[in-house]
């Protein structure tokens, strides 16, 4: 009797299990599939090939970083759960336990060592962009599987930030993985929330859910990225419901997208577009007096730069050209992000004051300039050149706006053919731009990489170095804000605007969390309840 009761309960249990199984197998019928139209073309499957968002945004589904940068640009634990600076030049990272790669092998400190070695010693240009992030690392070791110790060259208070750019790969059995092997997608294993399924260069990337993900089951069962470079085609795909999310929607199409029932999210980008001057040379190319005769470089006078900055009507650019999807700028990152100064706020155009200042500087009749810029690279770039030309005409500065393709622009800017031009800077933190755009260029340290105008201010250089040596935290942010205050008084550049990233999503998506770095990922999207 006892035996049969046990048998009975066992069969009941089996039946119950079968029912649960059946119910479980019914779920995939309503599986959450996500289709995204993206402008990011994903050039290669090698996560260390290029630091461009084009590559990293999509690959962040498959690969993960030790440290993750959240939408306020603050650092959050990724594959590392904590990190401490043991001494001035020594960092210790504690790794997350029970993390598995997609091939089932465990994630250990050795994989981190492998990743850093691959970037430092294996990859050759043009795939060397990531070396900027490992340059400060003197050695890396794994005392135990859960700990990584990194020795740095000198004090490196922002090492975790640098590591927030680097995708961790798995150490395979056959030495370093080549870019070709990764592109063949035979061994594409990361720890990320989605597994690689298929890739066609310039066409699609298909992903499936990683059910063993350490952070819990990811929301979407299948994710398909369609690479659609034409903005109009992305808008059409979203409007017709062919895709659930479309990234980088032109501001003028926002209304269309809304009318078709899609929702729109936007965020000011962690970047700046600005005007930059030739300051190193005695004469600036393209700058003459009104009759076309050569004159001494007027931009070397800070009063001229200030007058030109005062005479830019940023509200026209933001409201008319960017249809409200832009923020007038007075510094590198939008106010409120870490390291920005609350003292700097964009001012309305003051033409009379500007004209008086220009007269003070010895240019009562103004002068003539060629204003150069890329056309079609950044939202509103070509039109902005026109708007600036109109604004400056009001203080007597005659502007000939010239927009060219981005690669031509870069070639000519690099060759020093421009007197004043429209540039852009972005980075994982505001000090990246402070260093690249305004620090005195130095080939050895890589400082001033975007300082094509040779702006040089030794007091600023010293302050910036000190601020960058400060440990991450409020003290560092404050120091960076003060440095910004100090340098912007000298008007080394004319900040124009922070454009907004604009994304649209359809009814299958309940919410999409925008990231100021402009990332497009399935992790930022929440599925709508059925």
């Amino acid at each position, binding site marked *: 009797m006892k035996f049969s009761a046990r048998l009975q309960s066992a069969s009941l249990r089996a039946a119950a299990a079968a029912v649960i199984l059946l119910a479980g197998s019914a779920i995939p019928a309503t599986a959450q599939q996500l289709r995204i139209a993206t402008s990011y073309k994903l*050039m290669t499957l090698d996560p260390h090939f*290029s630091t461009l968002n084009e590559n990293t945004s999509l690959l962040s589904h498959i690969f993960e970083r030790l440290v993750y940068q959240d939408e306020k640009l603050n650092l959050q634990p990724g594959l590392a759960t904590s990190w401490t600076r043991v001494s001035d030049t020594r960092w210790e990272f504690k790794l997350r336990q029970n993390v598995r790669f997609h091939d089932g092998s465990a994630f250990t400190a050795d994989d981190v060592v492998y990743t850093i070695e691959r970037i430092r010693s294996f990859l050759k240009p043009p795939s060397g962009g990531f070396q900027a992030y490992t340059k400060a690392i003197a050695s890396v070791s794994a005392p135990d599987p859960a700990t990584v110790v990194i020795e740095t060259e000198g004090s490196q208070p922002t090492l975790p930030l640098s590591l927030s750019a680097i995708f961790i790969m798995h150490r395979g059995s056959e030495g370093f993985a080549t870019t070709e092997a990764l592109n063949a997608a035979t061994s594409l294993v990361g720890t990320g929330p989605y597994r690689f399924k298929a890739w066609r260069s310039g066409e699609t990337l298909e992903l499936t859910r990683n059910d063993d993900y350490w952070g819990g089951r990811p929301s979407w069962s299948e994710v398909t990225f369609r690479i659609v470079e034409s903005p109009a085609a992305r808008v059409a795909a979203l409007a017709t419901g062919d895709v659930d999310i479309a990234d980088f929607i032109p501001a003028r199409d926002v209304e269309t997208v809304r009318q078709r029932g899609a929702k729109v999210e936007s965020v000011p980008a962690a970047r700046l577009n600005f005007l930059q001057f030739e300051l190193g040379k005695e004469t600036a190319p393209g700058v003459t007096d009104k009759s076309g005769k050569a004159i001494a470089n007027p931009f070397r006078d800070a009063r001229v730069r200030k007058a030109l900055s005062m005479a830019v009507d940023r509200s026209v650019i933001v409201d008319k050209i960017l249809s409200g999807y832009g923020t007038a700028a007075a510094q590198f990152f939008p106010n409120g992000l870490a390291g920005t100064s609350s003292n700097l706020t964009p001012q309305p155009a003051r033409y009379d004051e500007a004209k008086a200042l220009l007269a003070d500087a010895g240019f009562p009749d103004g002068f003539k300039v060629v204003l150069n810029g890329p056309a079609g690279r950044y939202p509103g770039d070509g039109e902005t050149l026109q708007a600036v030309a109109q604004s400056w005409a009001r203080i007597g500065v005659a502007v000939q706006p010239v927009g060219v393709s981005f690669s031509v622009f870069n070639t000519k800017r690099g060759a020093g053919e421009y007197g004043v031009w429209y540039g852009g800077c972005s980075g994982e933190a505001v000090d990246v731009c402070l260093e690249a755009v305004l620090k005195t260029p130095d080939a050895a340290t890589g400082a001033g990489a975007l300082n094509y105008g040779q702006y040089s201010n030794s007091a600023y250089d010293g302050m910036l170095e000190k601020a960058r040596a400060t440990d991450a935290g409020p003290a560092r942010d404050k120091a960076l804000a003060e440095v910004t205050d100090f340098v912007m008084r000298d008007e080394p550049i004319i900040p124009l605007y922070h454009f907004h990233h604009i994304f649209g999503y359809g009814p299958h998506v309940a919410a999409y969390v925008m990231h100021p770095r402009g990332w497009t990922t399935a992790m930022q999207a929440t599925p709508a309840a059925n």
Partner: protein
Amino acid sequence: MALFKVISGRLYQAFLLLVVMSLIGFVGIHSVGNPVYNIVNIETATPDDIRRATELLGLDQPLWRQYLVFVQNLATGSFGTSYIYHLPAFELVLSKLSATIELAAFAILIAAAAGTGLGLLAGTRPGTLVDRMVVIVTVYALSVPSFWLSMMLVLFGAVMTGWFPSGGRGSTVDLFGWEWSFLTADGLKHLVLPVLALAIPNIALIARLARAGTVEVQRADFVRFCLAKGLSDRHILFRHTLPNISLPIVTIVGLQFGGMLAFAMVVESIFAWPGVGKLLIDSIQLLDRPVVMATLTFVAITFVALNAIVDLLYAVLDPRVRISA
């Protein structure tokens, strides 16, 4: 012997064409700008990164030396590696070929059939309402720019009615190692709009050619003799008129088909159709020289081959060509 002469002449022409084209392509891309700026992140790269990348790609060499290296590589059958995708350039072009072939083939089949039909219809009834309609509509269809036509097709066929998807290839089936859309219902739906966008201007072009030819041939003596002999209109139209007007049509079909294989970039871009034309225009924008050169070479070879086929068809269609040869 005569055949050998013809073939060797053709090959020589093709060779000259390839040399000239590669030179123009090479110099053209070079003068546009430096591709390194599309590969490294210009907003974070140091001048040193840029310099090393430039050296590795060989872009620091003088242009003539870069060209020599290109020709040397070509002799070993390699177009080099795409700067952007890091894949062998010619393989990249071949991988986009199936998408383009199915698009162009459908478009040209529809254009040839519909265009010839409309042209015959109008040409046999000159001056009637049907004829005037065909003439007027074809003028419009020919003058409309390709991108506008494509946008309108997206607007009506996809956004407003929702009948067809707005872009992409849909699901594909693997056959002979290539992906094909036309073998699945979903893929066929994706094909409709881009095929129409490519076919409509060509329908108009072929219809006008066919109409003009028909009007001329209908007046010819042999048609009158046929009529006098008592042959039916239908018989005259298809057995005598059609072969006589077909030479220019075949020429145009060949040329336009080649054009679609290579230069359907506007339509392919708007419909996000991952074909050769889109690859070419994307590569030009990114200054991906190996891919541009591989695509252009492919295009040149295609055109030479198509022209040869058209010449052969002349002989099949027109007995006089056979006699003179």
